[in-house]
């Protein structure tokens, strides 16, 4: 069957219809990509971040100097960023790169802060247990 569109209005109407129906699909694809990039970024960030190092480092600082030194570890966790994982962005679309890097950076900061907070709390408890008898005697 051959459809002839001689009326410009019909062509315009068809164009609008195609546009209207395709929009949700484009949006759906974007959402899928967003989720894919986010899942990959969060997984990679967990693998790349040395949680033990952050917990241990902040624990030692807090155990020696209480909250004051422990907060230095927390500050370090907030400031430090690992290198950009360039190899993971090879052959990826601009949208993926945008979603991935955003999620990766957030997750790394999150993991570092969480780990150093744990270490800081643990270290502070140790510091309190260690120094309380000393201060109570004096």
């Amino acid at each position: 069957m051959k459809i002839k569109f001689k009326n410009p209005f019909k062509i315009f109407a068809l164009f609008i219809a195609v546009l209207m129906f395709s929009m949700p699909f484009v949006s759906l694809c974007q959402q899928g990509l967003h989720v894919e990039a986010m899942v990959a970024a969060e997984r990679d960030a967990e693998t790349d971040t040395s949680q033990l190092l952050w917990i241990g480092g902040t624990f030692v600082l807090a155990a020696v100097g209480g909250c004051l030194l422990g907060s230095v570890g927390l500050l370090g966790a907030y400031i430090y960023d690992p290198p950009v994982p360039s190899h993971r962005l090879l052959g990826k679309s601009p949208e993926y790169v945008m979603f991935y890097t955003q999620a990766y950076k957030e997750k790394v900061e999150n993991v570092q802060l969480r780990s150093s907070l744990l270490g800081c709390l643990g270290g502070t408890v140790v510091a309190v247990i260690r120094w309380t008898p000393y201060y109570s005697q004096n």
Partner: protein
Amino acid sequence: MSKKFSITFLLIFLIVHALHAAPLKTLSLNFTRELTENNTTEHTAGALNYHVKTARVVVEVTEPLKQIMVVEDNILEIYYPVEQQAFRFISQRRVPLPFVESIIQSTQAEYGLTTIGFSLDKHEIANNVLYFYWTPPEKAKDKLGTVILGMRDDRLVSTEVKNPKGGTIARSQYLNHRKVGINLIPMTVTSSTYGLKSEILQHERIVYSNPQVNAETPNPILNFTIPESVKVKVVKW
């Protein structure tokens, strides 16, 4: 303990040594990469261009999309010629050079391990391969275990990095060496990273072709800059 952190730690020291010791000036290669992770395989193809003196890498990806990636020092730029989009990541520290590390390392005697404080523990021969067991320096012993290098006919054919408990973190194989200039470059590199239960987390296979070392007229793409007409999204990392 992060496996990739440990590998990155090792690679950073190795590449610094390698960059100074390598007789390379420029290197260009075509590549295809298959990356298998979580039961999905991604294919990427393109060309790698490396300028040693400036430590600048330009990767021109042709599949699955058109992309040009430029890495130099602490800056990573990604340009999409079709979409006319670009990113510039400004990092606090040096951005790892994609692909280059494994190629350069494979051309270095002993991988430069002595220079960074590793000591040769023992060696043994199995299946015509001479294996060297290297112990990491004290300061790295909490992150790294033994590094095992396999040599056959004076060329590096395998590397294995272990964690401090003796479990394998990563294993690479270097195959199909080709003499390019004075360097023996492996044209196929396969690498696997392993989880705590020795399960494969990621498997990568890179096949190189058309190698060109110290070309008299280096590929002009080595001087690539993002066109001024393209709006660059700058990300402070």
